[in-house]
């Protein structure tokens, strides 16, 4: 991107960032909701033993663990997906007025979307940091670094889905979509307690969920899920960018 383009992206990011920083309620919710959601589950779930099939570096292995560790392996990723996904959709929709003015003074659509993605990356960082901290209170993953990556991948995946949805769907339908799909994809289908249908492997949060469970419970991490998760983020972000260019 040319120097002028970088400057325009920076300007658009700063303008949108100031809008978020001026909104203490939103900032408070980004910190409070992971504490409430992960914390409540950590407190509610009993420490009963459970046997689950987990992806490892050498295929699938059966692991004995407790329900708290199992549930919290998925609560962090689903929290990131819900918060960043909905924030992404609203960031795109709320900034339409500002974006139209910026277009008038020469900003391009792709530059504006890159700026939104930068802002969303900052939101993701806040949500991921809080989610990791609350998870650690109740359960320490076997591989904290890989678990951190799974939180980032889950948030970034659904953040991009939110940005994409924000360009086409109205808010009420968008919120419904961005509640139901991550819950279904990461939490319900991601729980390794039963046989998931084959097509579940193609859902956007599948690799993030598999990586999170593997990083939390397995002796060796199924790194392939990290790679595929990053590919999913890149593909969905590219589609969102392409959609903004077409519009």
């Amino acid at each position, binding site marked *: 991107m040319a120097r002028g383009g970088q400057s325009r992206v920076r300007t658009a990011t700063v303008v949108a960032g100031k809008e978020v920083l001026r909104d203490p309620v939103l900032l408070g919710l980004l910190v409070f909701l992971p504490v409430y959601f992960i914390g409540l589950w950590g407190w509610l779930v009993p420490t009963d033993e*459970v046997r689950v099939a987990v992806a490892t570096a050498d295929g699938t292995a059966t692991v004995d663990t407790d329900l708290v560790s199992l549930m919290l392996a998925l609560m962090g990723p689903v929290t990131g997906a819900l918060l960043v996904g909905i924030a992404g959709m*609203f960031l795109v929709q709320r900034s339409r007025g500002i974006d139209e003015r910026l277009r008038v003074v020469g900003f391009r659509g792709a530059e504006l979307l890159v700026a939104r993605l930068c802002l969303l990356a900052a939101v993701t960082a806040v949500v991921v940091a809080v989610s990791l901290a609350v998870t650690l209170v109740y359960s320490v993953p076997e591989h904290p670094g890989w678990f951190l990556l799974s939180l980032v991948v889950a948030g970034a995946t659904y953040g991009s889905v939110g940005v994409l949805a924000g360009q086409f769907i109205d808010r009420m*339908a968008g919120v419904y979509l961005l509640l139901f799909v991550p*819950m279904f994809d990461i939490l*319900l289908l991601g729980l390794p*307690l*039963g046989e998931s249908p084959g097509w579940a492997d193609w859902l956007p949060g599948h690799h993030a969920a598999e990586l999170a469970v593997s990083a939390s419970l397995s002796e060796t991490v199924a790194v392939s899920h990290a790679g595929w998760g990053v590919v999913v983020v890149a593909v969905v972000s590219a589609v969102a960018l392409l959609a903004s260019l077409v519009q």
Partner: protein
Amino acid sequence: MAVAPRQRAAVGAGLRAFLRKPMNVALLVALPPAVIFMYELAVDPISAAPGIDLTPGAADLGGALFATAFLAGLLGLFQVVGTAQSDRRLVVCGYHPAEVLLARLLTVLIAGGLVAGITFVTFWVRTDVTPARPLVAFGALLGAALVYALVGVCLGALFGRELEGSLVLVFLADIDSFGSIGVVPTESAVLDYFPLATPHDMLHEAVYGGTVSGGDVATVLGYAGALAVLGVVLVAHGGDLT
């Protein structure tokens, strides 16, 4: 104009504005079967896992309750936030603020009833479950819609913005729907106080036992009454209509 025709006009305008959007109609018609179908796909395999003690038909009941409650909650939230400006105009045109507030609540409750009706028909036709007491089962869904619609109204009045209200509603509904079907066995009584707990018990009893507990009905109505009072206080205190 007398009060009743003015209420009819205000409620009718609110409902028309909602149903005029094709996306809203699509949500009403398409979501209940889609949610119930997806709950079956996701929850049925989990129910076979050792240590998980799910009630029979948990997926169907959970899907029906989620489809009803969350859509009604969103309706309440978006109605309150989205109509704040037009309601102020109605007050300028001579409506009393209490009339406008009542019309707003009636619109949300009628739309919530519509959601409950569509979900009930879907639940009956689409699943293998035949309710022993269909009317009570419908009443349970109506109760879930009523309670969540009022939760949405309260959140809309409290935050006054769609993003913040949506985030809180999403995290409440997520924990509530997941907890009420019992995927995670917990001995804690906290989940019993969440909005969907009693409508879930009512629905389960109506479907499988053919009974209805007066205590459950009173709990749902009490919950809804408390939320209605809170909603009125929040809307009035927020100064939306003054």
